[in-house]
């Protein structure tokens, strides 16, 4: 996978994960163009499209579009499953996840993603293990904060 973007129906970016080195300007350009292209798709169209020399796989969940750019040899159908798995993880973690959860807790969305994918590839295929790792890390964070002077557990 080269990158993953999450954006709303109005085209507002909610998450961007890049697995290839690009300048900020290039990222902005790609994001803008791709968001436009995907938002212009009609509901009856299939989830895949060719864009530049990449394959784009996208799926809409409620008000959020999940959009991945994969390479030629990657399997489009399994990418749909990857997207779905990520949504399931978010759902389990936040409890019936909605767009607002991801807006207000974007850093957690990133943490979950980073336990599921690494360098654009799936690192853990067990839902349970991903969630366990996040749980443990969160716990570590809380404990450390307590140790370090009893500030409220959400330091952020």
């Amino acid at each position: 996978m080269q990158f993953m973007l999450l954006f709303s129906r109005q085209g507002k970016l909610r998450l961007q994960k890049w697995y290839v080195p690009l300048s900020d300007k290039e990222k902005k350009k790609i994001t803008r163009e791709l968001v436009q292209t995907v938002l212009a798709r009609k509901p009856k169209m299939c989830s895949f499209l060719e864009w530049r020399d990449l394959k784009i796989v996208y799926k809409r969940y409620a008000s959020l579009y999940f959009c991945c750019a994969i390479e030629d040899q990657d399997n489009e159908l399994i990418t749909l499953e990857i997207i779905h798995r990520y949504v399931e993880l978010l759902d389990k973690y936040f409890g019936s996840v909605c767009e607002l959860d991801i807006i207000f807790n974007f850093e957690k969305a990133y943490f979950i993603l980073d336990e599921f994918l690494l360098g654009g590839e799936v690192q853990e295929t067990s839902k349970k293990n991903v969630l366990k790792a996040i749980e443990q890390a969160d716990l570590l964070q809380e404990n450390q904060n307590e140790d370090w002077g009893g500030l409220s557990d959400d330091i952020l």
Partner: protein
Amino acid sequence: MPAPIRLRELIRTIRTARTQAEEREMIQKECAAIRSSFREEDNTYRCRNVAKLLYMHMLGYPAHFGQLECLKLIASQKFTDKRIGYLGAMLLLDERQDVHLLMTNCIKNDLNHSTQYVQGLALCTLGCMGSSEMCRDLAGEVEKLLKTSNSYLRKKAALCAVHVIRKVPELMEMFLPATKNLLNEKNHGVLHTSVVLLTEMCERSPDMLAHFRKNEKLVPQLVRILKNLIMSGYSPEHDVSGISDPFLQVRILRLLRILGRNDDDSSEAMNDILAQVATNTETSKNVGNAILYETVLTIMDIKSESGLRVLAINILGRFLLNNDKNIRYVALTSLLKTVQTDHNAVQRHRSTIVDCLKDLDVSIKRRAMELSFALVNGNNIRGMMKELLYFLDSCEPEFKADCASGIFLAAEKYAPSKRWHIDTIMRVLTTAGSYVRDDAVPNLIQLITNSVEMHAYTVQRLYKAILGDYSQQPLVQVAAWCIGEYGDLLVSGQCEEEEPIQVTEDEVLDILESVLISNMSTSVTRGYALTAIMKLSTRFSCTVNRIKKVVSIYGSSIDVELQQRAVEYNALFKKYDHMRSALLERMPVMEKVTTNGPTDIVQTNGETEPAPLETKPPPSGPQPASQANDLLDLLGGNDITPIIPTVPTSKPASAGGELLDLLGDLNLTGAPPSAPASVPQLSQPPFLLDGLSSQPLFNDIASGIPSITAYSKNGLKIEFTFERSNTNPSVTVITIQASNSTELDMTDFVFQAAVPKTFQLQLLSPSSSIVPAFNTGTITQVIKVLNPQKQQLRMRIKLTYNHKGSAMQDLAEVNNFPPQSWQ
């Protein structure tokens, strides 16, 4: 100093902004606060400030001043700091910044941290955005972690290694030892990432590939794991809709593909498991189909036995019938890849593929179209074309050009009959006439000229087509050309194929003039129309004056191209009227040009293609010359070597002789090779210069070869005398002598000759253009014939002259050449 506003609070505040300006103001205010906070080196809330910065960055605002702060966070001992710091690094830093190198040391330390979650952060960051330098520095640490027994770290290290290898391929070797036991793991995370790592290595290095095939016996291991996944019962941890760990299955299948490619043994070893997966996988959900898809790709790419291949294609065929359009899309893509190699198997699914032309999704339609063209053959052409033409009618504009080109190509290859071919072309031109590529026009014209028996039918259909609508330029161009060529057939109502229509000459000229006037016509189209009108002057009998008028009007056209043509045509009417009919003669059948594809520009020898006549502004000299060249090739096929030098050399401008002067420009004194210098064309046949230059050109003395009377009619007699070259046995020199036994002179006498394809001919300048009456004198002219294949000499001659106040013209064939003249 009050604590900086919380992250969630800021997000809430920013979201209340009602305008872009209001939001920008809030952002600026907060950024200022954050900046001062950074300046004060506030350790406690640094992570909060950076987190806020990351949020604002996602909204699109600059956040570069936070880059160094990320580094400080990473260096901190607090886990929260590290978490935010590494996140910030991945979002704000990239390998272009020099700053990122400062991370290297931190990452190194964290890779050796006591807490696995910190190690995990470091591995993740390195594996996502590590630069080549960082990878080089830290590869050793990654390799160490690849060998750990901690599966949480091992799986991350494997993917980190993948990234390292992608960035610095030379480092691949060092990871080899660590891969030894990777597949013995039970942990699926490690298994999955290991398979990814092995895939990366095998793809990049043929040596690695060979090593893993032979030494590590990778294939049996993978087969075993895959088998377990399929056969084992329900495993809640990895289950997705009844399938056990589809992600791992897909990756294993992909690795098997690479291992089996071009390797018989490996392919055989995986044959059974592939068949098993192909037949047993549940297809009701996307997951199952994802696995089947990967299986099909693998089967098609390795050396699988034919039964397996057929199984694979049938799976794709079933995919085509699936309600899920994603599945259909994927099927079409795969079929497109295999249509060349497994053509017959794919043919079986042709009707389903053709149905996909009607799909609503653009990507599916495009693939279906490409696949349809790949499947067209002599047997299914009629049916397929019907579908494709219907598709052309209804598809989106972005497809029309490609579809039209594809149809032309298919029609050219497989047309069952000429009439069908013409009809198909007509249908495309009328349906998608404005989307047809420019290079299709000369192609089509050539096709039409080749279908001699269809000329009347074609011109009639084209006429009817543009009668209603002359806005589609390619259609109008082809129609104009045809009307110009075959207008006589049109008005004489000669059509056999369908009911001939009643058209008068004036009606034909009406439509051509409308094209000329219309705003929608491009300059090129106008050129076609004007030339067509001009050509009709020799084909129509009643409307020559009207044509003259039209032509003269355009002599002052603003369009330079049109003006030039009109002026030349005017000149043709005024000064060279006697040549007009010769010049505007019916085009000969053109040599077929092989097209390589719809995008190839059709190029033929400039002299023989009519297009230069239509579209390029021809200088006044060579245009009649190229026409005459066509005339000279009347006997079939085109003599590619241009006989006529294109430089109008300074010859005495005698009305009739001018044409002939252009036909041969050798000096009468027989001056040798200075001729090439004055003749720009490169293919000056060398034979003209050799051998005979030292001999007198006119040699009336019979050199042993009997002379013949080539033509004798209406008092005009033409005799041929022969001479063979001593130095070049393929050359025959013919001297013609024209005499006139009537009581009046024959003036403006023009002699033209044409020979079959295998010969080459050169006509030298005649002695004069008047054949005096009462046989008081003759016109002599020399013809040189090159006959390398020693074929029987045949010649067609054309004579034009003025006699007793009227223009005379005659065509004759000379077949009585003595054998000695050509053997």
